């Protein structure tokens, strides 16, 4: 972008041989701006305008609705379970895959990617078929009075499934690329495996890990499809924020829907900001990883 501005006064005479003509450039940039405005900025602005239709007080009042608060709470609980689980699992899986050769390694890699290729709705349905009242484990669960489908455990399971690859997928290429020389050096210098992990491995992967956690959190909060199948839509009990937006919308409560949506949108903006910061702070390592 910046070099376009710098070259502008002398354009035509010493332009890059591979650069577009000024007219083509103007059209391309204009097109991009129009598309971004139409499909990104306008909808985002609409969400916030709609949310604040009744002013700050109206916004806060809608937000204070018990069902809405319950949805926010449930979403936080789901994220608070999913993120630590995948933080642990992701590091363990990436460690195993990048450091060891074992039978079934490529199968494990494929399995980690599976949630990316399966529709979330199907994932939700699978859990219904497994744990639902007429499902494989249904009778047993009913006999032991354990409720999974249409309850919080089901929502957590569905979210765990769809967020499964995010942390591991960030770390595997990074750790493969870094190799294990640093870790072996630490061992030869007398470090215990735990010290090595804390002082060498973790600092080496921390930005990638943070990036993965961020993506995992965003997905856990925003997941709709899989959770929709499993939640049962019980207001104040099993509605997460995205589900609650839909429920309010179906009630023709546009303001309410926009208020909850604005929370989700804000979270997305914060995620985007942190992501941009990470990409800037950690540009070289991300660039290296993208090559894979």
């Amino acid at each position: 972008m910046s070099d376009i501005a710098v070259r502008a006064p002398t354009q035509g005479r010493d332009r890059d041989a591979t650069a577009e003509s000024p007219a083509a450039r103007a059209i391309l940039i204009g097109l991009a701006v129009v598309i971004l405005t139409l499909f990104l900025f306008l909808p985002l602005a609409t969400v916030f305008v709609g949310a604040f239709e009744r002013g700050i007080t109206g916004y806060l009042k809608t937000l204070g609705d018990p069902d809405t608060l319950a949805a926010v709470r449930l979403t936080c609980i789901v994220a608070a379970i999913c993120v630590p689980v995948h933080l642990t699992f992701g590091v363990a899986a990436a460690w195993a895959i990048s450091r060891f050769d074992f039978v079934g390694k490529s199968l494990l890699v494929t399995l980690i990617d599976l949630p990316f290729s399966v529709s979330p709705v199907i994932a939700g349905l699978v859990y219904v078929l497994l744990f639902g009242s007429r499902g494989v484990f249904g009778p047993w669960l009913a006999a032991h009075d354990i409720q999974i489908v249409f309850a919080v455990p089901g929502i957590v399971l569905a979210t765990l499934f769809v967020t499964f690859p995010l942390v591991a997928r960030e770390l595997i290429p990074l750790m493969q690329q870094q190799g294990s020389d640093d870790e072996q050096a630490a061992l030869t210098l007398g470090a215990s495996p735990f010290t090595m992990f804390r002082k060498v491995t973790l600092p080496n992967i921390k930005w990638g890990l943070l990036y993965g956690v961020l993506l995992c959190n965003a997905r856990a909060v925003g997941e709709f499809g899989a959770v929709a199948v499993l939640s049962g839509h019980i207001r104040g009990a099993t509605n997460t924020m995205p589900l609650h937006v839909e429920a309010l919308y179906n009630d023709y409560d546009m303001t309410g829907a926009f208020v909850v949506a604005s929370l989700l949108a804000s979270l997305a903006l914060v995620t985007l900001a942190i992501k941009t910061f990470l990409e800037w702070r950690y540009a070289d390592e991300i660039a290296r990883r993208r090559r894979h």
Partner: protein
Amino acid sequence: MDIHIRGLRKTFGVSPALHGVDLDIASGELIGLLGPSGSGKTTLLRILAGLETPTGGDIHFGDLDMAGQSIQERRVGFVFQSYALFRHMTVADNIAYGLRVRPRATRPSARAIASRVEELLGLVQLTGYEGRYPGQLSGGQRQRVALARALAVEPRVLLLDEPFGALDAQVRKDLRRWLREIHDRTGHTTVFVTHDQDEALEMSDRVAVLNRGAIEQVATPDAIYDDPATPFIYGFIGDANRVEINLRGGQARIGDTVLARVGAGKEGPAELFFRPEHAAIDDGPRSARGTLVALRRFGAKRRGEIRLDGAAGDIELDLPIGAALKPGDRLGVRLDRFAIFADGRRVSVLDLATRAA
């Protein structure tokens, strides 16, 4: 500390990486493991460090059996080709790492660590760089930090895996000489791996040449170059000519010229090896006859390609710059030093310079 390796074997899956390596390394010796890729040299080094577990055989550091010793207990200094510096730590923290991770009881005081770091920075000529991060150093400087880090823990042995493999030719040359000096000053028993014959011959007290998971020869650089024990070493180190000959009646001949007596009972095809500089143009009775096929300038010398009568393939030979020779000339070639191998075993060595046949 002296190292004794006996019958060391290592198998990866089904493919053997080392079969039966024996090697004794004297205390304070600098020994180079030289071989092509896949020869097992790095595997041998990593087994010494405890980074790989041998399939069989044993290793002693002095009287200490390494079999049950973990990587940490072995106290080896290991230097990687990739430097493997901790990128989030300063140069000083990198060097101090091995001292700081010690259990509290044996850990030196902060002041002792600082002075040790200072001393090592001086040794590797990086005083003033303690606050830098590895990313701010050149490749040569990084490898010097890696060496200082390895030396900080007072290792029993120092192991270097292709230490200069990632560096520019000029930096490499400087570091070779410099590493040799460091070694002479600190006196650590040092084993390094390289595929670069110049590096191995220049730095080592002795060179161990590996091929396909076995040691072909362990000897001083002079002996490795002048007196290779196997056809592989002739081919792998320096230039060499290979001539297919026949042993008949206890004699090795090229055409009609008798080169050496090999003793009765040795008959059949054999290989003769000699280095281009160990032969000369000479019309005397001990010379093989041949035709000059081509002449090439080769640095300070002139190389001639000669087709010997009664031998397949052309040989290369250093010729005097001034000699009036042109392709097509008939000439005699006197071999001053050569070795004859039958079935890969050496049956005869001749060195006219010392008159030993």
